[in-house]
């Protein structure tokens, strides 16, 4: 069957039940995108596992099982066996349980760090983009300085400033890395919005400045920032893992964390590479999931992609 341009357009108008907003249309497109579905499944699985980790994991994170090492020569690490699908780690703890439980920590650190960075970044970006002038110049020069420092180096420096390594330090350090990215991005699209006709239209209608900024500029400017947030979530997880890997994270052995597990596994790489493989794979898969989701989100909200 064939249709003309005009019919296609008409069909689109009819098929949308009246009053479908841009956001709901974006979701409609998202649902038909294989990459988005894959990303959503990975992320969904990750969140579910993280939330239910204590129920799924057969053992505690700090629980040791000396009996596993009984018949082995010294230095060897037990492999998979009944009740321990992935064997144990170098301290005789159930490796499978630790990988599962670590999901929770990773999610917590990743999400919190990104959220904090996002909120602070949005405030700075909005202020800079809405006021312009010297406020904008000052704020943007500061973010430029932060952006000029390699992100991991920045996070390490911030984390190193803290008196003792802790999870809070990691979250704050990773959050600070995100702030300039979000602020810059939002400020850019706010500036573009400021020049746009519909903002001029709202001004000429006599709408108050604050309402113009919050009702018209921010909602239209924030899309790319939200997309960036999902992508940043992936890098936040990686950064947090890296900080733990470098020993700047939480030293509490009772808490499992993928980055830390990876760090500790390197000593035993020749004995049991699986100890490094599983946490690394978990980090990569989760990061991939967020990236897939973020990229498809970016495409879905891009007005040029709308047909």
């Amino acid at each position, binding site marked *: *069957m*064939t*249709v*003309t*341009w*005009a*019919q*296609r*357009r*008409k069909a689109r108008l009819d098929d949308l039940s009246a009053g479908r907003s841009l956001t709901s249309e974006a979701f409609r497109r998202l649902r038909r995108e294989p990459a988005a579905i894959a990303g959503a499944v990975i992320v969904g699985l990750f969140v579910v596992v993280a939330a239910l980790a204590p129920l799924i994991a057969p053992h505690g994170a700090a629980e040791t099982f000396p009996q596993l090492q009984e018949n082995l020569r010294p230095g060897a690490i037990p492999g998979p066996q009944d009740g321990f699908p992935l064997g144990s780690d170098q301290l005789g703890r159930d490796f499978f349980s630790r990988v599962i439980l670590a999901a929770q920590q990773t999610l917590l650190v990743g999400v919190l760090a990104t959220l904090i960075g996002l909120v602070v970044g949005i405030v700075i970006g909005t202020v800079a983009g809405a006021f312009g002038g010297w406020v904008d110049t000052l704020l943007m020069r500061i973010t430029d300085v932060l952006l000029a420092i390699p992100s991991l180096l920045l996070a390490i420096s911030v984390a190193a400033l803290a008196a003792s390594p802790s999870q809070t330090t990691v979250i704050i350090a990773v959050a600070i890395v995100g702030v300039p990215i979000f602020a810059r991005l939002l400020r850019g699209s706010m500036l573009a919005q400021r020049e746009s006709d519909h903002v001029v239209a709202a001004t000429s209608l006599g709408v108050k400045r604050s309402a113009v900024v919050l009702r018209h500029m921010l909602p239209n400017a924030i899309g790319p920032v939200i997309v960036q947030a999902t992508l940043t979530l992936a890098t936040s997880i990686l950064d947090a893992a890296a900080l733990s890997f470098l020993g700047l994270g939480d030293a509490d052995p009772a808490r499992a964390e993928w980055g830390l597990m990876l760090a500790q596994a390197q000593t035993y790489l020749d004995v049991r590479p699986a100890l490094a493989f599983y946490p690394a794979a978990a980090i990569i898969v989760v990061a991939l999931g967020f990236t897939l989701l973020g990229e498809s989100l970016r495409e879905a909200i891009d007005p040029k992609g709308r047909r």
Partner: protein
Amino acid sequence: MTALLEVRDLQVAFTRRREPDTVAVDGVSFDVAPGQVVGLVGESGCGKSVTSLAIMRLLPARGVRVSGSVRMDGTDLLTLSGSEMRARRGRDLSMVFQDPLSSLNPVIPIGLQVTEVLRRHRGMAGDKARQAAAELLERVGIPDPRRRLDSYPHQLSGGMRQRALIAIALACQPRLLIADEPTTALDVTIQAQILGLLSELVRETGAALIMITHDLGVVAGLCEAVNVLYGGRIVERAQRHRLFATPRHPYTHGLLRSIPRLDAPPGEELEAIRGSVVDNLPWAHACAFAPRCPRAIETCTEVTPVAETSGGRLLRCHNPVPANAE
């Protein structure tokens, strides 16, 4: 006289996975005689630009289905291989686009963009090509052409850019020039210059010109034969004097009456065409224009009107405007 270009039953459909095909051009046929100026007129979405891109074979290979034939010198351009077509483009037929800034390479001086064509199609090189390029620029009315050879596109005004683009299109003396809305992005006084230039060049070089535009005024002064497109089909074709004096298709008729004319007394209510293209019916079993047509009868929504030719005019309408209506 045999035609230079014969377009027969050209159909262009855009295909997309899991969706029905979108037909942009639906069985368009027309001839262009050597040295003739032919107009394709219509609103956005009528298929006029897609037609020109199909003739030039510039549509993307993926997601597009082109059928019908486009004959030039006895060969069907649609069946040529990619390299054969490339050899013809520029030499036998070339094109001028609407937006001269995006059609020119922004990082290469104008002169180099002209000599590039000369080098490729006419084997010119060095000073000879540069000399020829300067002459071309002068021919299209660019002042101080030698100096302008070294200018970049952004250093030229819109009108000068369009002239440069025309110079490039004419560099190899093609026998057919396709101009797709060449003056739409320009101001009226510049538009007048460019239109004057185009008709002068066509007269001098004997090249044929297909003029694609939405502006009936542009067509009125320039084109010998005018094709009016609606919804991907030609609904009316006539020699320009006759088309404008006695438009027979209600769409042409309505369009002419709905535009404010400079020479009409001001203030009168315009006779607007109702609705917009979203109201169109499918050609498959109706006239696409019927829902907007003031002369629509019952047949119009049930039977596809066929194109009938008589006295050098083509008309696709069940209930045309009477010839003596004016």
